[in-house]
């Protein structure tokens, strides 16, 4: 049953991706990428990664769609037709995709308990997290406590991204005022 659900969701995601690539109307592209994000969030729920699914639904389908729509407001609604045939980019994309698929052949089987990633620190977190932190959700314990440095780094990345966007868009606004 799980296989059927995952298969159906992945098929719909592939269909959405093809539709995004073919579609020239940018409004449709934005809505399709929102649909893609919701499908991704559903896949993550099916994989029991509810925390990530929540983030994907809120950021990927919610905020990103709003931001893309407000960016669309500043540009034309139709994608410009490419001037030449995109054969070289296609070849690069196919080669990269092929290399990545080749790389997955070496990965341990999905949810293999003997995989290196499940044999390293994960058992300790699962056994000790509740006793040491008193937090029932192991994801929260790992994120905020065991991997506190990483989360501090992530927060700093969000901070830096925000500062970068402010620096880019604000200066432009001031320059426009000076011109006017």
């Amino acid at each position, binding site marked *: 049953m799980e296989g059927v659900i995952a298969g159906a969701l992945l098929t719909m995601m592939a269909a959405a991706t093809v539709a995004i690539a073919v579609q020239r109307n940018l409004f449709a592209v934005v809505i399709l990428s929102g649909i893609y994000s919701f499908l991704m969030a559903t896949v993550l729920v099916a994989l029991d990664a509810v925390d990530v699914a929540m983030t994907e639904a809120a950021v990927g389908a919610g905020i990103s769609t709003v931001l893309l729509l*407000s960016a669309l407001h500043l540009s034309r609604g139709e994608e410009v037709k490419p001037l030449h045939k995109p054969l070289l980019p296609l070849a690069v994309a196919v080669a990269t995709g092929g290399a990545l698929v080749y790389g997955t052949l070496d990965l341990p089987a999905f949810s293999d308990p003997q995989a290196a990633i499940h044999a390293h620190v994960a058992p300790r977190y699962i056994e000790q997290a509740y006793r040491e932190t008193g937090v029932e959700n192991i994801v929260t314990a790992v994120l905020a406590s065991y991997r506190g440095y990483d989360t501090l780094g992530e927060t700093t990345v969000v901070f830096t991204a925000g500062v970068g966007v402010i620096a880019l*868009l604000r200066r432009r*606004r001031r320059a426009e005022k000076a011109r006017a």
Partner: protein
Amino acid sequence: MKDYLVLRVIAKLMIGFMLLFALYVQFHGDFGPGGGFQAGVIVAASIVLYAIIYGLDAARTVIPDRVIEALIAVGVLVFAGVGVAGLLLGGNYLDYFVLSGDPVHGQHRGIFWVEAGVLITVFAVMLKVFYLFASRGREADAE
């Protein structure tokens, strides 16, 4: 959108529940899925909804740009401050065990403040980016 009565009423009803759900996601993150990042995005989304329905100026009156820009930094400072508090209390940086007499309670306290820092920064950055994009569109219209 200001003239659509149904949207105005429904949005006003929804925003309260959205903020409540964000608080639930934030503080229930210890037991169920959720945490600072998700809660921050949900708070930002509720303000974005407010801005879409009632206009950008109304949203900017509720949460001015200056406050938002300060909050972007405050969140990171809260997170880093938890680390410094650990240092001052004789532990390592981001060591929560020393934050309270009881180590498990110290962990709780540390995680609480760290998640609060994440919430503040994520919320402020998301909303600021939205403000910037939305206001650019309007300036282009004015020209």
